[in-house]
């Protein structure tokens, strides 16, 4: 059942985020900032750039290893998501057929190079984002957003959404399991049944919202959600941000891979 799997999956990311490592303890703002730096550095490359992207993998690898994240899990998630990038990128080899360089006898076209570049960008940006979220978690993330001046209603909305995500997907799963059990193995749902199920889910949701609101009022809710503030920007955060910023700048402006490759080839000759 895919819904159940998704739920377990989301829950697992929460579990990872509640871990403890030097990276987990960093202020979320530092991690968000650094991850954005990486993404911007990576996507600012020209579309035919492949090898210069390689050194950037140091960042997600660092997050995964130091953050104690399961690398196989992150890798699987990277492979599973965003077929869109691959779907759009896969046209490049067909459309850009000018030979860029020769590898032995075979000519490598610009399309293949730019497709490889898209795949590398994809792997980098997605793994960095997943690793960031897995060592941060929604609560610290929302706290960081609130402290960075993101409008409160939006932050509160994110927190609420995260809280009820599990409740409502669980409800959807139970409804759809109940339907499956009563449909003699029929796995497909017609539009009619779908409408009724979604409609009922919506009704239950609205009722739930009302109950939640009453419960909040009973506990003294005054229209203002308070967000706990924990960490702050200190020395570890500054070291983390500065260190990576310097590294990214080097990787961005010096093609480390090419320098290495030429050095090795020169040495062999």
């Amino acid at each position: 059942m895919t819904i159940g799997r998704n739920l377990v999956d989301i829950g697992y990311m929460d579990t990872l985020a509640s871990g403890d490592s030097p990276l987990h303890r960093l202020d979320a703002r530092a991690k968000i900032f650094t991850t954005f730096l990486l993404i911007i550095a990576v996507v600012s490359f020209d579309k035919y750039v492949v090898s210069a992207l390689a050194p950037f993998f140091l960042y997600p690898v660092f997050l995964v290893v130091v953050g104690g994240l399961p690398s196989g899990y992150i890798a699987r998630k990277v492979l599973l998501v965003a077929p869109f990038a691959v779907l759009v990128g896969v046209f490049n080899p067909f459309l850009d057929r000018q030979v860029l360089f020769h590898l032995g006898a075979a000519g490598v076209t610009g399309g293949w190079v730019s497709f490889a570049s898209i795949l590398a960008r994809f792997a980098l940006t997605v793994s960095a984002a997943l690793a960031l979220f897995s060592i941060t978690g929604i609560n610290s993330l929302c706290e960081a957003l609130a402290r960075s001046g993101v409008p409160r209603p939006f932050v509160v909305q994110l927190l609420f959404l995260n809280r009820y995500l599990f409740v409502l997907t669980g409800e959807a799963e139970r409804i759809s399991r109940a339907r499956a059990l009563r449909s003699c193995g029929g796995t497909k749902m017609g539009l009619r049944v779908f409408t009724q199920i979604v409609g009922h889910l919506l009704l239950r949701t609205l009722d739930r919202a009302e109950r939640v609101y009453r419960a909040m009022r009973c506990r003294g809710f005054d229209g203002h959600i308070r967000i706990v503030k924990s960490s702050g920007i200190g020395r570890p955060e500054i070291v983390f941000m500065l260190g990576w910023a310097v590294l990214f700048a080097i990787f961005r402006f010096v093609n480390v891979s090419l320098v290495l490759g030429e050095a090795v080839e020169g040495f062999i000759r």
Partner: protein
Amino acid sequence: MHMADALISPAVGGTMWVISGGLIAFSAKKVREEADDRKIPLMGVLGAFIFAAQMLNFSIPGTGSSGHLGGGMILAILLGPWSAFLVMASVLAVQALFFADGGLLALGCNIFNLGFFTCFLAYPFIYKQIAGNSAGKKRILLGATLAGILGLQFGAFGVVLETVFSGISELPFRTFILMMQPIHLGIGVVEGLVTSSVVMFVMKVRPEILTAVVEKAPIGVSIKKTALSLAAAAVFTGAALSWFASADPDGLEWAMLRTSGKEKLESNGKVHGFLASLQEKTAFLPDYGFKKSIAEPGVAIKEGEQEGGAGPGAEATWPAVDPGTSTAGLVGGFITLLAVAVTGFALKRRKIAA
């Protein structure tokens, strides 16, 4: 149709972040002005509802594919455009964070494509005008379908524009748009149908809910799995077609280059301009050493790039590529990746030892 980080340029991603961020701030202000306490849990729970509903699929008769609710329009109908936009943005943000669906930099694009058009165009100008205060089934069906179509057409158009402006994908504007718009026409119709049928269901079972909220806003639906399967089908057809089609455009571009001196205008102007000039140089200086050009410090180019861009006509006259230079990037890339992996293992060992 979530945009991905891998396909956008920083300029496009940044611009869309600023736009979507501004819209979020403005919507948040509007929501705060409404000062409706009740809406806080309602928005949160409805966001989770959209999430849960998107996990339920229905089969689309005759196609073998399945669809699901998009939700933007339903939210707009139940909450009004401002709150609906905030909820949509939060759903997309959580999708980007939990599932890496889309990407962090592309989040601005996605919020705009999927939130803005539905909440601020399709809802107020189509659905509300047609189905606003009347409870007629036909009007709801018509309003939701038209709004669904419009919202998704604009959303798809946004994806095309953002992709083409970023210039990472080679897809030319016309091909991409011919691929995206018809697919999203189908998705829009299905979305509209589902939206209206959910609205009508609620209307039948609990009419008071809609009479309470409908005065303020209308509903909408979208479809993800259909989109995916249709997109996959489109890619295969598109790929097959473009395989045959691309020979001609290549020739055309080549002709353009000869007649006007300009390469194709979109996407790869810089590289091609540079390569074209290189090509000219090579024609005049047959002994021009490529290795030397690589070593030139001012030329920030990557492996193979300098040899690239040989137009179809130039290929035959320019086979003298030094294999050394083109492999240096590859070799170096692999070594770097290896080094990254080794660093990772070393860090891990140190961690275990510690």
